[in-house]
């Protein structure tokens, strides 16, 4: 067993960090306040090849391994969770096409997604369907050479500016996936403002009113319901969010280390107070533990091991809950300054709350992970917990 990044991964990590320091952190608070991502920033991200992170070079992508992709998400998450969200949803669409698209669909969309010429977004949630995803009400019916979609999608990250939407709809009683172009007749969108966190991620409500798309825009089969496109896309999304949460927690830690080293109260730096040290210790320990869980999930993804599905749930559950704790403590450490827009920790706290809701709420994860525990444990013999220890 060896827990160490390869030289290439370390080099990539340093480059990601430098980019985030230079291009993202300086504008993150402003973008959050304005609830807006400037196109120029997305262009810079695209120029780095980040939007083709998971797409192989044959389609113009960067072809990153899963650990490198994770490191990218951590660094983006450290700088700005909205930018990490862009990476998440865009990668979900690219990955779904790569995994389940036919040759024509891949050739048509993947190069443009990899270059950032086309931005992808994910449309599963609806006004009345969140965690209970299989109960979506959007419908699709075949009409000659077209599918006709009707319904409303809500909370679509970067829905305001995306060009290609992966939309899920009930078709012949089964949940199926469709590629919907922003210019498709019957498609419209309206911005969602005033969100608690990831405020720069330009959420939109999507309206599909007799929206007609070519029948070849059906992605994947219909027989497995949510299992193929949605589940595999959400797995990548969950993995991306998990790493992004490590980034939030790391940002909280770095901000707290810095602040407690310069702020003095009771004739001593804050870092010399033991109750502050308690919070710093928890942040250090939790961020390291979360990163290791993410590495485990990524390692299993890289080897195609089915265990990666549940390890990703565990990583996301842990990383999102410790990110919220770290952000809460970081605000506490910063006192009144932490509640002010002059410090980024208030943004980390708001963003961290969103992380416990998206890509599987904390409660859905608790149910799922507990079920996994019983499934992996032989309660009838002497090997209780043996499998879980592996």
């Amino acid at each position, binding site marked *: 067993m060896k827990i160490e990044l390869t030289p290439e991964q370390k080099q990539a990590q340093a480059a990601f960090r430098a980019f985030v320091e230079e291009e993202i952190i300086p504008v993150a608070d402003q973008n959050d306040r304005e609830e807006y991502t400037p196109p120029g920033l997305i262009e810079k991200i695209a120029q780095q090849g980040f939007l083709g992170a998971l797409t192989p070079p044959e389609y113009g992508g960067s072809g990153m391994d899963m650990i490198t992709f994770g490191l990218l998400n951590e660094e983006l998450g450290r700088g700005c969770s909205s930018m990490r969200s862009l990476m998440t949803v865009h990668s979900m669409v690219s990955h779904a096409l790569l995994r389940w698209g036919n040759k024509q669909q891949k050739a048509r969309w993947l190069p443009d997604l990899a270059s950032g010429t086309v931005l992808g977004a994910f449309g599963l949630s609806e006004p009345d369907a969140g965690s209970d995803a299989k109960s979506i009400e959007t419908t699709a019916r075949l009409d000659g050479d077209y599918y006709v979609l009707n319904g409303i999608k809500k909370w679509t990250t970067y829905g305001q500016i995306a060009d290609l939407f992966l939309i899920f709809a009930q078709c012949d009683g089964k949940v199926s996936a469709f590629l919907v172009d922003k210019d498709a007749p019957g498609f419209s969108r309206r911005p969602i403002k005033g969100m608690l966190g990831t405020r720069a991620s330009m959420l939109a409500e999507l309206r599909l009113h007799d929206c007609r798309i070519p029948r070849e825009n059906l992605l994947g*089969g219909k027989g497995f*319901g949510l299992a193929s496109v949605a589940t595999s896309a959400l797995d990548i999304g969950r993995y991306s969010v998990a790493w992004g949460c490590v980034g939030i927690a790391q940002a909280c830690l770095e901000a707290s280390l810095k602040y407690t080293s310069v702020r003095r109260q009771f004739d001593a730096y804050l870092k010399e107070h033991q109750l502050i040290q308690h919070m710093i210790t928890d942040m250090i320990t939790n961020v390291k533990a979360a990163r290791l869980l993410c590495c485990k999930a990524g390692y299993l993804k890289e080897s195609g091991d089915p265990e990666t599905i549940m390890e990703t749930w565990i990583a996301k559950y842990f990383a999102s809950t410790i990110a919220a704790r770290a952000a809460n403590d970081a605000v506490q450490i910063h006192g009144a300054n932490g509640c002010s827009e002059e410090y980024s920790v208030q943004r980390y706290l708001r963003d961290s709350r969103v992380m416990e809701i998206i890509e599987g709420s904390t409660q859905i994860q608790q149910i799922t992970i507990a079920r996994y525990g019983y499934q992996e444990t032989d309660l009838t013999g002497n090997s209780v917990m043996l499998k879980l220890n592996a």
Partner: protein
Amino acid sequence: MQDIRNKTKAFLARFFQNIDLGDDEDIFALGFVNSLFAMQLVLFVENEFGISVENEDLDIENFRTINAIVHLVERKTTTQMTV
């Protein structure tokens, strides 16, 4: 073929504890199958037997029983070896 059957049985046994699954028993009819299980099953088949499950293979009939999974793996192994 026996190796494929045994490995598939061992994988499914984790999800269907206390049930002795017959080779032709409908695993989807047993009730506690969800999309996560289905995805794990697809990944298992790909990873364990070195095949690639394509869109056209995502027919629930290919995964409904142990015999169906064995048949799918054998068919895909033969096809992908000859391509």
